[in-house]
């Protein structure tokens, strides 16, 4: 019996193996997508995918990647759906698309008006793609951003990813992965936020390292070389569709509101002196409360530790001036947050800093009872913002 069982298993495995029942794609026949842009063309009612895929420029014929080159090629596909557009792009490039290395999805401005969750779900539900992909909005079309190539790092898209990550760590924008955006979109208000990218043609002077890319199209090389991509505020979504655009200041306020601010520096003018306080260890707590009339309001309190990075002539013992500077800095942050809250809630009708989450956390029954008009309740409830910065946590002598 033992022999029969072994023979049975062996014959089965061999017969299956020899029949070539599994199809696979050789690594060299794949196109490793690095960044992709998706546009919707309303006139023709089609989707257009443009992607940068890896194509190495060898260094000295040793199969080593030349890091001074963009190392990418572009492929474009159009179709009635994102899937068909992707397939057409695959046909055009002559390779099988590998989405696992894609770290950036740029959503064209027209596509932002469509249901964002459907677009993102297409990529996340593909088990070979990576849910840790940054998603950005484009000022115009995504393709024009994909066209610009940089010569830093292994591949061109690395420059854009660094841009988003640095901006996020400096407190200028919220950088969320695709799955985090999906989490936001799946709450009852369907709210989300994407950082917005745009092409800038500003000339850089000699003191700043050039962040310029090389134009895709031909033409005047000098002029093309000055094209670069910059962050320009953000796109706000409500009910899974674009509901407005916020500027860079509101983006900073949003960082504070959504408890994601790592570090932020505020410069305060005190007569002729300039003092810079850096807010760190920022903690934001949103607490839903009911007033005497049983009306809902949100108490948003920000606490942070402060550090005088530039003292501006204030001595350590001059407590009165320190408190005055600190108070101004707090007011400035409060103003930023209030502006963001107004822009997002009133202009964009969106809840991207987690009012619903806070309400559900404290009053799940209230949310369940009012689930049909929860968006209206959230957006009409006033927000009371308080900012408190402890500048003595490290002591002034630290700097």
């Amino acid at each position, binding site marked *: 019996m033992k022999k029969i069982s072994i023979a049975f*298993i062996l014959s089965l495995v061999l017969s299956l*193996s020899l029949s070539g029942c*599994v199809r*696979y*794609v*050789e*690594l*060299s026949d*794949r196109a*490793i997508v690095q960044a992709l842009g998706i546009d919707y063309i309303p006139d023709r009612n089609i989707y257009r995918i443009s992607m940068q895929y*890896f194509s*190495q420029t*060898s260094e000295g014929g*040793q*199969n*080593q*990647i030349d890091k001074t080159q963009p190392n990418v090629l572009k492929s474009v596909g159009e179709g009635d759906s994102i899937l068909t557009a992707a397939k057409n792009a695959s046909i055009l490039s002559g390779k099988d698309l*590998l989405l*696992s*290395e894609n*770290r950036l999805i740029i959503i064209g401005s027209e596509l932002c008006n469509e249901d964002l969750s459907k677009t993102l779900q297409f990529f996340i539900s593909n088990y*070979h*793609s*990576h849910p840790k992909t940054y998603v950005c909005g484009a000022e115009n079309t995504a393709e024009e951003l994909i066209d610009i190539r940089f010569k830093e790092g*292994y*591949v061109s898209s690395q420059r854009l990813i660094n841009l988003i990550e640095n901006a996020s760590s400096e407190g200028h924008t919220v950088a969320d992965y695709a799955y985090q955006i999906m989490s936001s979109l799946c709450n009852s208000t369907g709210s989300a936020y994407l950082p917005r990218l745009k092409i800038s043609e500003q000339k850089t002077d000699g003191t700043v390292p050039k962040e310029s890319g090389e134009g895709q199209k031909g033409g005047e090389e000098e002029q093309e070389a000055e094209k670069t991509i910059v962050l320009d505020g953000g796109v706000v979504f409500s009910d899974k569709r674009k509901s407005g655009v916020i500027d860079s200041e509101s983006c900073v306020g949003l960082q504070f509101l959504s408890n994601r601010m790592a570090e932020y520096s505020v410069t305060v003018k005190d007569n002729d002196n300039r003092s810079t306080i850096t807010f760190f260890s920022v903690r934001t707590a949103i607490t839903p409360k009911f007033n005497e009339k049983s009306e809902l309001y949100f108490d948003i309190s920000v606490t942070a530790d402060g550090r005088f990075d530039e003292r501006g002539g204030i001595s350590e013992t001059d407590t009165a001036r320190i408190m005055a500077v600190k108070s101004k800095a707090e007011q400035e942050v409060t103003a930023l947050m209030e502006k963001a809250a107004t822009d997002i809630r009133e202009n964009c009708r969106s809840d991207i800093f987690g009012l619903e989450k806070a309400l559900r956390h404290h009053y799940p029954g209230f949310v369940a009872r009012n689930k049909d008009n929860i968006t209206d309740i959230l957006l009409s409830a006033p927000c009371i913002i308080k900012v408190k910065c402890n500048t003595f946590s490290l002591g002034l002598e630290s700097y």
Partner: protein
Amino acid sequence: MKEKIPDFSEKSVGNILKDIKLSASLEENCVNIRAMINNSTDLIIKPAVIEGRKIVFITCEGMIDKMKLADLIYRPLTENPPKDCHTAKELFDKIASTMLIAEEQRQLYSCDEVLQAAMSGFAVMLCDEVNYAIAIGIQGFSFRGIDEPSTHINLRASREGFIEVIRINISMVRRRMKSPTLKTELMKVGERSNTDICICYLTDRADYKTVNAVKDKLKNIPLNTILSSEFLQSFLEEDTPGLFPQVMTSERPDVFVSKLYEGRIGIIVDGTPFALILPTLFIENFHTMDDYTHKPYFSAFMRILRFTAFILAVILPGLYVALCNFNPEMLRSSLLLNIYSSVQTTAFPVFGECLIMYSLYEIMREAGLRLPKSVGHAVSIVGGLVIGEITVSAGLMSAPVVLIIAATGLCSFAVPDLYESLMIMRLVFILAGGIFGLFGITVVGTLLLFRLCSKNAYGVPYMAPFAPFTLKSILRDTFVRISWRNLSRSDVTLSQLSGRAKRKTEKEN
């Protein structure tokens, strides 16, 4: 009588030889013995006369110490022979009972015993009118001196290794274990070679059922010739054909003794420096004697490193093929891009590259292994330069594949006891990974686990103490070794491992 002269074309010779008893006629005995050995030139029959009686000394060329023969036998017998002996039997009895000739002395009654004794280094004395012989142990054959073992080299442990002579090996064991409970039992196996083997165990720690089972198996080994301990291995393993060894071999007496202390049974085979130890556990393949001489944390680190090397040696090439062909997303970005760049220009698909490179590596290893050292260097140069460098630069192979095969080759040397198993498993994993990707690797891995977990060597689960799970034993001396201070607090023998007791109950039931 002549009709009984054995036919050496027969496979079995033992039974026929045993039938020929020694007779009272010296001449007849000599004729029979000569006939039995086909007048072989290495058998020396030396006639002499003592006190008027005809006697002969039968020895085997090269097996005895000639000085001992002269000093201990010839001189006393010729200078001071036993006096007042009326019959030949009386003379012979006096020699056997009163003269102190050698430590080892015994009486023989058949021709085959005479031959066996002569071939084992005894001087056999036959006398006319006496129907038995006296064998006197004056072994003096030349042998290799005690040396450092060629395998299982250690840094701090003993430098002594077993040699080819069974008696010296036994003495080495006894020197390390002066306990009265250490029992050594000599046996002969192999119908034609009559190889001496010695079963060693501690009577108070070894399971007597296992000892009996081992003895039964040894008695029933149908081999004619046993030239190495590995000849016995497959007969002692319960599960054949097995990919993993269930019987451990060791060249080191210190390892041998330490295993006996854990309740195992050791077998020393004459003519080979490799002793057998059984039953063995899978985890023991990752242990060395040095682990017990180093600090526990270092030993733990080394053992984990060896196990990691084992896992890498088994699955790395298969995993590489599977990841490249089916799941490239698992590779780190920069690694993937580098691999992608290198496979762009190669002539073969990754699967093919891996198979070719693996075959080339094994061929190179095999070629270098048995060649003289001077030629072996040439093989290394050819292998290192031509295969490694030129194939990559010519674009025939990609650099990662060369690196992976070289790395796995290196890893497999970290666990030398499992090299053969590793070689086969690696190939199977490459095939599985190439055909079915990670699915294939999992399927093969699961099959392997089922197989390993189903093994029981003499009632001891092969994967113990992990499966069945015994936390106390795992923490004692597996991947981590507790300090000697803690080890000394409690003894653990094989019979205390989980699963063992159950097996006994089951058998009893």
